[in-house]
């Protein structure tokens, strides 16, 4: 019974505690489903409640939960990689670099600046920039589907921007992983170069050899395929971590490498597993937050949410404009992108060991709570928001005028 050994102490009590927590999460997930929003904010609140200083502190071995949480991150990134085909990535890279760069400038820089203004060290500020930068592709894709916007003209622009952001993560994560572990500047620079070279190499290999890998896995039964994909993800993730590229990126690349029917099957098989482990990850993240840090985090989080919410409006506008989308559609594109979620938490979790890591954790949790709830709402009511009047007459499609939808 190695599991029980890992849990340590009284296994019966641990099972009861984990069982109760899982049931609470189940209720929260249902509630979120009813409200039509993502469950991530609820998981974060639940984590706060059971954490130290919360209303019902748990005394489960942190080692056990942290391992499941780490696996949750890997599976989140794996399923993200499984979302896209190699062709979609190439196409996204071709047309999306300019809006992608603007997106980074309009969202990463305010986060970075806020971190520096708060007097944090540079590494933590860079992490906060990342927290603000990456939209939650899970939430955004779900919002677009739920609001029946998949047919809309601005939608490909939004989805392409998500592809670019996710690819940018592939470069950003190893860089910050190196920053977090790095000692002096020269050392960090070397680590970053190695990390980026490794990512470029593996990405190339994944795109080129993915078809062959998928062909090898294709005849496997569901059970064998699940185990193979899970094993491959942990293996590549672990090796990536060994060379300081960040395990999450290894998992992302495994997802990218799988293609064709295997991609769809693996996605369907891993999804329930991901939901389970990812819930643990969100729970564990806020489990570690000291509730006393929260009040101080709320004001900067709200300010950041407003600034970077506007930042996403800029991104959405820039991405949708080349497709000939009118002002109304550009606003819809921007509001759809406001929600931050899983990746902001993944990035913030990297900073757990840094000097201002605790404050970053509290700020990121508050920020994700705000944007993950406000983003989908803004997207829903985007058609009723007033348009800036001076922009309306510039395009022929705006003949409808503000307020008519």
């Amino acid at each position, binding site marked *: 019974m190695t599991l029980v050994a890992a849990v340590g102490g009284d296994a019966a009590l641990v099972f009861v505690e984990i069982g109760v927590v899982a049931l609470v999460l189940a209720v929260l997930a249902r509630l979120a489903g009813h409200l039509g929003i993502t469950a991530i904010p609820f998981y974060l609140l639940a984590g706060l409640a059971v954490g130290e200083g919360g209303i019902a502190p748990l005394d489960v071995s942190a080692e056990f939960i942290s391992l499941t949480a780490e696996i949750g991150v890997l599976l989140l990134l794996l399923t993200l990689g499984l*979302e*896209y085909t190699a*062709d*979609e990535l190439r*196409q*996204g890279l071709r047309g999306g670099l300019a809006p992608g760069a603007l997106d980074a400038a309009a969202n990463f820089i305010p986060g970075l600046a806020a971190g520096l203004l708060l007097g944090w060290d540079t590494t933590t500020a860079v992490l906060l920039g990342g927290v603000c930068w990456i939209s939650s*592709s899970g939430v955004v*894709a779900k919002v677009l*589907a739920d609001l*029946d916007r*998949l*047919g*809309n*003209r*601005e*939608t*490909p622009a939004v*989805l*392409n921007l*998500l*592809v670019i952001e996710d690819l940018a993560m592939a470069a950003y994560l190893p860089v910050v992983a190196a920053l977090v572990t790095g000692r002096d500047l020269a050392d960090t620079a070397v680590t970053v170069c190695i990390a980026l070279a490794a990512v470029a190499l593996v990405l190339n290999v994944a795109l080129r050899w993915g078809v062959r890998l998928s062909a090898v896995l294709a005849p496997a039964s569901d059970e064998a395929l699940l185990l193979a994909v899970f094993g491959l993800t942990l293996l590549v993730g672990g090796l990536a971590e060994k060379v300081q590229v960040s395990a999450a990126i290894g998992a992302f690349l495994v997802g990218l490498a799988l293609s064709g029917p295997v991609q*769809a099957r693996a996605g369907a098989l891993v999804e329930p597993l991901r939901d389970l482990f990812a819930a643990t990850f969100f729970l564990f993240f806020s489990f570690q937050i000291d509730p006393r840090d929260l009040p101080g985090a709320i004001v900067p989080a709200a300010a950041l949410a407003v600034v970077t919410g506007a930042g996403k409006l800029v991104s959405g506008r820039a991405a949708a404009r080349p497709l000939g*989308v*009118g002002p*109304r*559609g550009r606003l*819809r594109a921007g509001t759809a992108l406001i929600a931050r979620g899983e990746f902001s938490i993944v990035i913030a979790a990297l900073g757990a060991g840094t000097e201002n890591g605790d404050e970053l954790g509290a700020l990121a949790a508050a920020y994700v709570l705000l944007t993950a709830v406000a983003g989908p709402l803004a997207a829903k009511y985007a*058609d009723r928001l007033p348009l800036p009047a001076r922009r309306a007459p510039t395009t022929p*499609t705006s*003949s*409808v005028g503000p307020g*008519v*939808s």
Partner: protein
Amino acid sequence: MPEVTEIRLPGVGVRHEYATSDGERVGVVSHRSGRREIVVYDRDDPDTCRFILHLSPEDTRTLAELLGAPHLSEALTSVQRIEGLAIDWITLPEGSPFVGSTIGEGRFRTQTGASIVAVIRRDTPLLSPGPEHRFQAGDVSVAVGTPEGLAQLRQLLSG
């Protein structure tokens, strides 16, 4: 046929769009999961849809049948790529000698080498009919074989 534009939706699937002869813009969103959505764009604001129909894979087949494109053809196009193999749709006329007899009794494969892979009766396809399938006038037999074999089969069935 009007020009159909294809737009990729990364992570979701693909969307095809075209304008009808009335000038309506119509799109079909094909999800990777097999779900489909039919959308009709707003004439005033072409960025939004004013009508959306959600279809499960089964609904899609039904609708395709109703619109007059037997979904069967999709599966059969792959067969058509095989060298020397042909497909034919043969309607059984009122006066055919095989009205009322079964596929087995006709001994079609023995005589012509062609196989009847489906029978479409009043727009409902019956896939892989057994030798016990009894023909009615108006049944459309979908047969696969060599072009010569299919010509012979057509002659037999038409009487």
